[in-house]
């Protein structure tokens, strides 16, 4: 394995690991404050129990997210000093703002987790809400930095160095809006369905468990709307990519040749040697229609750029298919849940629905991993699209396979531990029946 590939792999492992925890940090506070607010309003102590148990899981995940995020902030330099040297002054701003947002998140998470007995009920909910808001703000700033790597703005190149640096213009980079929207919706959809899936699984074993019934409803309240809206945001993103990064769109779609009325390919494996995508289901004019809202629009294929500027096409295409496929499942499932709920049917007693929800549990996170693969691998061979090649940004230190293997082993170990701890937490869930908890603490 060469040094550039090792560095890229280490970055991929670090980001892929961190994103899981970062997403939970964005969305879980929303679930917790909904549960807590319901407890305050109804006096139903099971909601309090729920908020506290979710808080326990969130505390573990947030801690791992905080430290794995620290790793990334260092790795930007450890692996890509050339990138940081070039881009630090241009795009350091959103990272700095992210630092402040993360500060607020950490402070109020401490208040929230340890403050149950120390502050007023209202202050406690406000602290939870501040965690949720600053979590979303952190995501916003980090995604801005990533968007800039896709559509770099706010500087001029002079002899290979950036001049006329304008950090504000850099932050207003065109890709920012759609990437942020897509990421935040993904965070709520993935977390909502992951949690709903876990409680749905428990309800398949015992559908009268009142604790899991409440948990299911709160989780779906967050996951369902986000999953239903997400395809619209995906459409906005794809159209931007079609305009701004044609090679990425071509790789996503397995579109080798430039053509008008390009078909939409479902599935299939791109064959880079033969320059065609095999075994895909092709919907005539579908891609032109989706990407440009015109069935006869010209879609630029990979042949529009030199071979050395191609991203790894099969990886990008397959990741994109996974994201779209699973995302579509979640959106349709969301519609099903919404219909059942609007008819006031008992969701937990519907075994088919609960099965569908239970298997959806990992899907949102798989979507996020696949989606980041599309956006990051799809940007290759550039670290800053059209400006700096990834290979030119890498650290001069040789032997990068060693830190890659060390960090991977560390994260494998932590991943297994976290999974085990969460499993343990879920399996210790209380067994409660309707009416069990209503005599306990009533809201003031």
């Amino acid at each position, binding site marked *: 394995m060469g040094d550039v590939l090792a560095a890229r792999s280490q970055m991929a492992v670090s980001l892929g690991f961190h994103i899981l925890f970062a997403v939970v940090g964005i969305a879980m506070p929303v679930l917790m404050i909904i549960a807590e607010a319901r407890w305050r309003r109804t006096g139903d102590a099971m909601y309090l129990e729920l908020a506290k148990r979710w808080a*326990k*899981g969130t*505390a*573990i995940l*947030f*801690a*791992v997210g*905080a*430290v*794995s*995020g*620290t*790793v990334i*902030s*260092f790795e930007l*330099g*450890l692996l890509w*000093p050339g990138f*940081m*040297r*070039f*881009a*630090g*002054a*241009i795009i*350091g*701003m959103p*990272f*700095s*703002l*992210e*630092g*402040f947002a993360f*500060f*607020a998140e*950490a*402070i*109020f*998470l*401490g*208040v929230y*987790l*340890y*403050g*149950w*007995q*120390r502050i007023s009920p209202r202050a406690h909910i406000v602290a939870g809400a501040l965690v949720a808001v600053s979590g979303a703000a952190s995501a916003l700033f980090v995604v801005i930095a990533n968007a800039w790597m896709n559509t770099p703005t706010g500087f001029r190149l002079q002899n290979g160095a950036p001049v006329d*640096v304008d*950090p504000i213009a850099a932050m207003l980079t065109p890709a920012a809006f759609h990437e942020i929207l897509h990421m935040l919706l993904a965070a709520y959809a993935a977390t909502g369905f992951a949690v709903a899936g876990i409680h749905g699984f428990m309800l398949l074993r015992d559908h009268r468990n009142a604790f899991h019934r409440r948990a299911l409803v709160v989780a779906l309240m967050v996951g369902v709307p986000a999953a239903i809206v997400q395809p619209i945001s995906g459409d906005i993103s794809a159209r931007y990519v079609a305009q701004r990064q044609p090679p990425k769109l071509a790789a996503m779609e397995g579109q080798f040749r430039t053509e008008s009325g390009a078909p939409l390919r479902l599935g299939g494996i791109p064959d880079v040697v033969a320059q065609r995508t095999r075994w895909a289901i092709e919907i005539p004019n579908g891609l032109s229609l989706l990407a440009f809202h015109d069935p006869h629009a010209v879609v630029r294929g990979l042949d529009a750029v030199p071979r050395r500027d191609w991203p790894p096409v099969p990886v990008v295409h397959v990741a994109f298919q996974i994201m779209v496929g699973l995302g579509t499942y979640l959106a349709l499932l969301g519609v099903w849940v919404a219909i059942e709920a609007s008819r006031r049917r008992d969701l937990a007693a519907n075994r088919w629905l609960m099965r569908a929800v239970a298997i959806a549990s990992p899907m949102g996170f798989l979507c996020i991993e696949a989606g980041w693969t599309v956006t990051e691998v799809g940007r290759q061979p550039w670290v800053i699209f059209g400006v700096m090649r990834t290979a030119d940004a890498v*650290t*001069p*230190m040789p032997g990068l396979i060693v*830190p890659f293997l*060390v*960090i991977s082993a*560390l994260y494998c170990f*932590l991943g297994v*531990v976290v999974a085990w*701890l969460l499993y*343990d937490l879920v399996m210790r869930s209380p067994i409660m029946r309707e009416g069990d908890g209503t005599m306990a603490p009533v809201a003031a």
Partner: protein
Amino acid sequence: MATAIAFVALVALNAYVLLGGADFGGGVWDFFATGPRRAEQRALIAEAIGPIWEANHVWLILVVVLLFTCFPPVFSGLAIALHIPLTLMLIGIVLRGSAFAFRSYGSAEDGPQRRWGRVFAIASLLTPVLLGVCIGAIASGRVGVILEQVYRGGGGESFVSLYVSPWLSPFTIAVGALALSLFAFLAATYLTVEADDAELREDFRRRALAAAIAVFVTAFLALLLARSHAPRVSAGLIASAWAPLLHVLTAVSAILAIAALWTRKWRVARVAAAAQATLILWGWAAAQAPYLIPPTLTIGNTAAPRRTLALFLIALALGAVVLFPSIAYLFRLFKSARMHEPGANRTK
């Protein structure tokens, strides 16, 4: 303006040492928990750092983003030359934080509690040493020299001479040991204030006094080795106009801290210990200024364009308006007069 921002970086690093450093120090005392009150010592440490360690940790992130936004060549240079110790430090940071969370929120059974406690303690012990080693390597000036060679791309240099020996020397290890003893000293001194049990307080008083001696020894050793290993910083610390004042102030705060511990004036000891740590850090910074990585990279020749610096200062001011009251609130909530019954907030 660049100087002002470098000053902010120093203040943030200072805050990290006083707050985050003490959290690591707490882990050190978890490692060295002994005697009949071993369990109580560990419980007090966990209770003291539980609500605040994540917020304290962010000071380090602030230093990092500040460096890469406002002094990009410094950040990328440090990341190249100190790749190995920084990666090791990160592993320590990851294991410390994760193990602490696993112990606090995971299974309450004995086995996992002991295992995660062990990981937490060992990681807390090693991470400060690596932080100190990195600072020592910068102060020694060898990071800067190596960077010149790397950028020139000369070749012929062995891997070890480029990426290992600049940070692995008696001097850097002495600075690492100094960082460790300093953090342990801060933690033990803070814990005498936080303990509500007289015997527990005595435990940490003894530990604080022992750590004070360790600080003295390692600081002396680092100064001694600096003469040959870090001549620039050493010269600054000995010959500058401000040097005598610095040494007097450091000595006064050190003696005051020990005297206050001796006479059980806990709060005075806490302030004096923090002052001592601050002065040691500022002494290094003053002796090295205006260099960020001696002997070539200065505040002036690495600063980002003015517009970036100005925006950063504005963001900093806005951030401070929001964050300082929040931090004050957090600390008032968990660190003011102990209004709670012991262990009330432990989630076991």
